[in-house]
């Protein structure tokens, strides 16, 4: 049912109603509709606010984290600030934090590899990576990342040198970790945008390297 968006102008119309793709109305989908409509009727939220919040989340994604990583690779002073205070450095680079949670950036080196998990729920640096992938929230990942990180890494195809230390960071609601991966060899000629294009989401979670 796409007929509602037929009036769109050139390019996607940000105000067009979006098709839901939801063909079954489950109990929880009903709850979402009910709670949302009650909050709107009570004047606590508006439909516009909700749509804008969805659009803001849609606009977030790993490209934001990649921008920070590339900037850190080319600018040692920025890298120092990023490692010192991730939230402030991200704001400085134009990435809106709009959450009271701290962003903590941890740097991979030949000696230390960092891996991010949230064993208790699914805390994730949403402000710089968007909504987490399903596997990040899965029982297997949350259970095993802390006690057999190398086995988990191997499942992602990541082999580390035996002498490298693996440091696992367990996120909380107040602390969100982002991995600063190592800059790949042979990228000396690339500019910041070119470098950012190399940075993957999974490398910033620490399950892969570049």
């Amino acid at each position: 049912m796409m007929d509602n968006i037929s009036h769109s102008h050139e390019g996607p119309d940000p105000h067009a109603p979006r098709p839901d793709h939801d063909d079954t109305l489950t109990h929880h989908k009903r709850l979402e509709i009910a709670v949302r409509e009650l909050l709107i009727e009570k004047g606590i939220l508006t439909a516009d606010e909700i749509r804008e919040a969805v659009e803001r989340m849609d606009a977030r994604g790993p490209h934001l984290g990649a921008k920070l990583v590339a900037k850190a690779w080319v600018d040692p002073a920025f890298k120092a600030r990023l490692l010192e205070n991730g939230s402030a450095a991200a704001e400085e680079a134009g990435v809106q934090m709009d959450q009271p949670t701290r962003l903590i950036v941890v740097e991979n080196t030949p000696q230390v590899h960092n891996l991010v998990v949230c064993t208790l729920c699914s805390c994730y640096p949403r402000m710089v990576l968007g909504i987490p992938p399903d596997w990040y929230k899965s029982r297997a990942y949350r259970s095993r990342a802390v006690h057999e990180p190398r086995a988990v890494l191997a499942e992602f195809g990541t082999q580390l040198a035996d002498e490298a230390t693996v440091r696992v960071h367990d996120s909380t609601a107040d602390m969100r970790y982002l991995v600063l991966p190592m800059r790949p060899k042979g990228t000396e000629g690339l500019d910041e945008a070119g470098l950012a294009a190399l940075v993957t989401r999974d490398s910033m979670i620490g399950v892969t390297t570049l």
Partner: protein
Amino acid sequence: MRGVHDMGGLQAGPVERVEHDYQLWEKRVDALMVLLSRKRRFTVDELRKGIESLPGDAYDRLTYYERWISSITSALIHRGTITIDELRAKLADIERRPDGPKAGTP
């Protein structure tokens, strides 16, 4: 006692690298959480408390945003922001809508 949500260090099978594109209703649940906490109508701690209070079998059976909307709904009722009667009436109203799932799309 270890809660069902507290799974760090337990044995588990391989990580299945599944992902899905979030559905609009899931993104709206996310939006409700973000907006309600910004307006100080709800906190992240309440969200977690609600999720961690789910019975173990429900925790495992529900999807991520199903847990969220369950928790948000109980917290709003607990705070008196919405009442159970209002919720029941609204759910019954949604049930009666002829066009079903599309009816709630803003």
